[in-house]
Structures are given as C-alpha cells and as structure tokens.
C-alpha cells in the first residue's frame, strides 16, 4: 500500500516546561515518537502535530537535528489545537507527521558570522539553528543572538539563553523599562541598531511578529546587509503540509513546501500574503 501522507505517527509527551505565563502562554514539549515513528529533520522544518479529537496544527521543530530520541516544540496558546496542547499532561500521546518544508542552508554559512534576531515566540523556529551552530561552534565565527520579549516575563528559553553566554553574544531586550532589567529597553529592531552589527562575512536570521521582521530587515539593509544574506521564516495557516489543501500560498508558492525559509532576496519579490 502506498504511504498514507495524512496518517500521523504517535508520540508521547516526555517533558513539558512553562516558558511564558499569561494569556498567550508559551509551553515547551518534548515528544518521543512511538512504534519506530522517528524521522530526521533539518533546521527550519516543521511538523504537523495533533491532539486527537481537537485537530492538527503545523508547528516549527525547535530542537536541533543533532538531538535524537525526541523533538522539541514550543507552542503559544492561541487557537484550538495549541490550547489543547497546553492542556496535555506528561505521558499523554499525540500525533505527529512530517517533516515539512525547506530548511536553512546552514552548511553554506560555515566560516561566517551569524546574527540571530528573534522576538516573542519567534525564537523557537530559529532555536534549532542556534543550538546546532553552538554545538559546532568551531565551524562559525562570531555568533550573536538578539532576542526580545514584551516584558521580562515574556522571555522564553531564559535559562538556555543565559547558558549560551561565553560562546555566544546574547543581547536580550524588553519593550519597556522594568526595575532590575539591565538589558536593552525598546523594540527589537532598535536593539539590533544599538549594537551596530557588521555585515561583512555575515548572515542575519530573523523570526518574530511580522511587524518586527519588517523593521528588522529595513534596519539590516541600512547597516549594509545584502538581501541574500538576510533570512527569515514565515508561516501561514496550513492543513495538509504537502502543497494540496490550497491555503498557505504566497503567490504561486505553497509555504509548506517551498518555504517556510526564505532569504529576503527571494521573499521581497513575493506578494505580501503572509
């Protein structure tokens, strides 16, 4: 029988952590595939996750391809399926199929300086890149992470980010000043300008709310970053993940197949339908 692309494998929740509290809470999960349902993935790819009885949603894989045995997902509580994930307990079983989409061309970036620029939940899709680059630290020159949350309580992966310091320049920011905060106060695009990153032999990778991405790219261009050296990852509502259900297209491209990773040199010529 041909492979049934819509039938998910089963995976067990083996770890959960509340990253961010509140109305738009973010929770991290480690899912361990059952019944030999493991698949390898590349940095930037996604998986279709399901809670049976609630439905499916496409979520970025947040763990490095180097991590074997489980896959990490960090999910914001916004919709029907993401809320169902927040209601799960350890040991619960969910559905997973994938991997979907293209990936970041990390192998082309060895020997370069990397700037990661994330905002809000947008750290998760670039986290596999950051952790892979750190695991292969000698292959890259300077690695810098800019990451901002609305408030200090909205900073996800806080402990992991602190652990990166030493081998990676980490610049955290929050939108408005708070007592006890010694990082940057202001929006992420301004936080980037504040450190004046050097575009020579550098790649910038950004993910976050669409408005943040827009101004980050404008600022990177101002700093002299070429369009082909700026990467982002976009998302649209998806149902199949396989270029058939017809809703995630940006112009002629289905984001689930041709994306989610684009260089700005490619994305700037596509219609703004994301």
């Amino acid at each position, binding site marked *: 029988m041909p492979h049934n692309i819509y039938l998910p494998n089963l995976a067990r929740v083996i770890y959960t952590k509340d990253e961010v509290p509140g109305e738009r809470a973010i929770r991290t999960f480690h899912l361990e595939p059952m019944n030999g349902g493991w698949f390898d993935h590349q940095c930037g790819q996604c998986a279709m996750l399901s809670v049976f*009885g609630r439905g499916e949603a496409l979520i970025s894989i947040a763990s490095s391809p180097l991590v074997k045995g489980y896959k990490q997902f960090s999910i914001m509580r916004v919709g029907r399926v993401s809320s169902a994930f927040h209601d799960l307990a350890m040991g619960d079983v969910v559905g997973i199929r994938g991997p979907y989409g293209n990936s970041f061309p990390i192998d082309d970036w060895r020997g370069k300086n990397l700037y990661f620029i994330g905002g809000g939940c947008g750290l998760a899709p670039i986290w596999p890149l950051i952790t892979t680059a750190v695991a292969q630290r000698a292959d890259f020159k300077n690695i810098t992470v800019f990451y901002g949350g609305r408030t200090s309580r909205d900073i996800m992966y806080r402990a992991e980010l602190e652990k990166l310091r030493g081998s990676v320049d980490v610049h955290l920011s929050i939108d408005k000043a708070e007592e006890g905060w010694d990082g940057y106060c202001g929006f992420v695009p301004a936080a980037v300008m504040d450190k004046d990153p050097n575009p020579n032999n550098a790649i910038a990778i950004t993910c976050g709310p669409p408005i943040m991405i827009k101004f980050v790219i404008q600022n990177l261009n101002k700093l002299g970053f070429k369009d082909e050296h700026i990467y982002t990852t976009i998302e649209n509502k998806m149902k199949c993940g396989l270029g058939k259900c017809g809703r995630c297209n940006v112009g002629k491209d289905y984001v689930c197949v041709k994306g989610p990773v684009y260089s700005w040199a490619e994305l700037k010529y596509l219609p703004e339908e994301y």
Partner: protein
Amino acid sequence: MEKILDKKRLGDWVDALADYEVLAPAWEEDAWGYQPVNGPIRLDHPNTKQSPKRLAFPQREVFFTFEQIKGEAPRLTQTLPEAPRHAVFGVRPCDGRGVPRMDQVFNDYVEDVYYNTRRKNVAYVGLACNKPPNANCFCLSVGGSPVSTDGLDVQMTDLGDRYFVKAVTETGKALMTAAAGVFAEPSAADKKQLKDMHAAAVAYPQRAVNDPDGAPAKLKANFKSPLWDELARACIGCGICTFLCPTCHCFDINDEVQSKAPLKGQRVRTWDNCQFPDFTMHSSGHNPREGTGARLRQRVSHKFQYFHENFGMHQCTGCGRCITECPVGIDIIHVVNKVAANAA
C-alpha cells in the same frame, strides 16, 4: 478504436458494463446531476450543475478513526476508500479537462492515496459539445475545445440518431470491448459527418478570455491594483464558484468527535473555499487575505497565474459554472479581461 453506436443501443452498452457502477446526467428536482443509471439513458443534458470531481474527491471523506481510553495510547484505524468502479457518462470536455488538473495537484510532490484510490476506479466517458451548451461556455479561449478528449477515456459525439464513439485510453478501449456486439464499424460517411460536426463545434461563437497567454504576467503586474476590491465589492463570500468548479481542490481537515470518554472520533477531509474569510486566518487573528478583493484575486490568480506558473497550464477549463451560478454576477471572464487590460 472508433465505432458507431445506434442511440437505441446505448442502454445495451451500459448493461454490458457489469463491473462498473454507471452514472449519467439526470434531471433531479431542479438541476442536472450525475445519478446511477437505472433504466433508459439519454444524453441530452446541457451540463450538470456540479462537475464530476466528487467521484475522485468527495465533498467529505474520512481519513481515519481514532479511539482513546484516557491515559492510554490512541488506536488509529485508517479508512482507505473502497471505491466502486465508476463509469461516468456524458462528461463534457471542460469537465474532462478538469481531471488532469486534479491529478496534477494530488500527485505533485507526494501522492494523495485517498484521491488516487478513487481516481483509478473512475472511467470518464465524454460527450463532445456540438454547440456550447451554456451561454457562459468559454473553453476555446482557455486552451480547450468542445471536442477535446483531454482527461477522457472515451469520447462520444452525437451524430443525430447514433453516436460516434472513440476510445481515448486503454481504459476506454476496455469499456468498448466489454460490449463489442453493440457497436458497428464507422463508414466513410460517418467519419465525414464527425469531422464536419467537430469543425462546426469549434467554429461556434463563444465568450472569451481575451489574452489567456498574457494573463499570468498581467495578473502578476496587477497584484496591488485597486480593481480587485472594486470587482469584488458585490461578493457575499458564499463560495458557490469554487464548490462547482471542476478544478478547485482546496480542503480542510478536522476532527469529528462522537464520544468524549472514551474518546471516539474521526479525522475528516471536507471541501474548503478560498472565498471564506477564515480560510487563511491565523489563530492570532491576522489574516493575509483580509477582504473580498484579496480573496477574489486569489481565486482568479490561482486559475490564471499561479497554476500556470507552476504547471504550464491554466487551471480554468471554461465551463462557466462560477459565472452562471454566482448570486451577485461576478464573472471570471470579465474579471480577467478587465484586470489584464489595466495598465499596472
């Protein structure tokens, strides 16, 4: 394989197709639709209200069922379709041309096993249009023809008291061979009449998309044109245009729950519609195609630009259903012509 079939013997051919469930257009309540043949069969319909796409891509189908006792792993049971073999008669050339377009979508990149399982069991027996059956037919301007055999297994042409029947595929040959006794060999006069009928059919005036080859570039250049909002102002988002379209393939996937404890339900695919606001709405509330203008642009550009850019053919086959059935008179021919004529 080319044969002549006396109209009085059409029923005998259908009877000989014992391995198939035979469908043909029938008038039911207020519309022509494909119905199982029980009794006399006539092929004098204009076109059916719905295209035959549902035979390979039904409006609703179950992917799998799930059962889960709390704390235990769910049991998934896939429900691949047990598709009966269908022979569908009276398929108009525009709907025939919809078939390879659907095949393209459901086999591009990876195979859709649900579609293919059904699709390989459907034989399409076409009926050429001696003249356009509908005032909004425009097959000629989108690369088709009233006598196109694209996507069909058999082409029948009405020659008055008899049909000229031509096998297009091996499946078509098998359908004809199954009832070899009911056919006669075509005479030179039959062949001449067929040629004349087809020539007349192609010459019959139709509405037209003015510059179909130029449409992809023109639509692309007009992506940001205010024309889209203007042309879509009357749209009520009912989606009839896409539901009736022989090539619209968009779908939704949802879980239907029959019982909560123990959990019992099924994952279901249903047709979906790019004219609905929540089709593209993110769970954050952000919608990349916020207004009716953006959604009309998506439907028209998918047909006349994106599909062409991806697969080298227009996704519209010119059946005219979306024009005829639109409750507010949105007319895809007018839209393409108007936008394409706009200097972007």
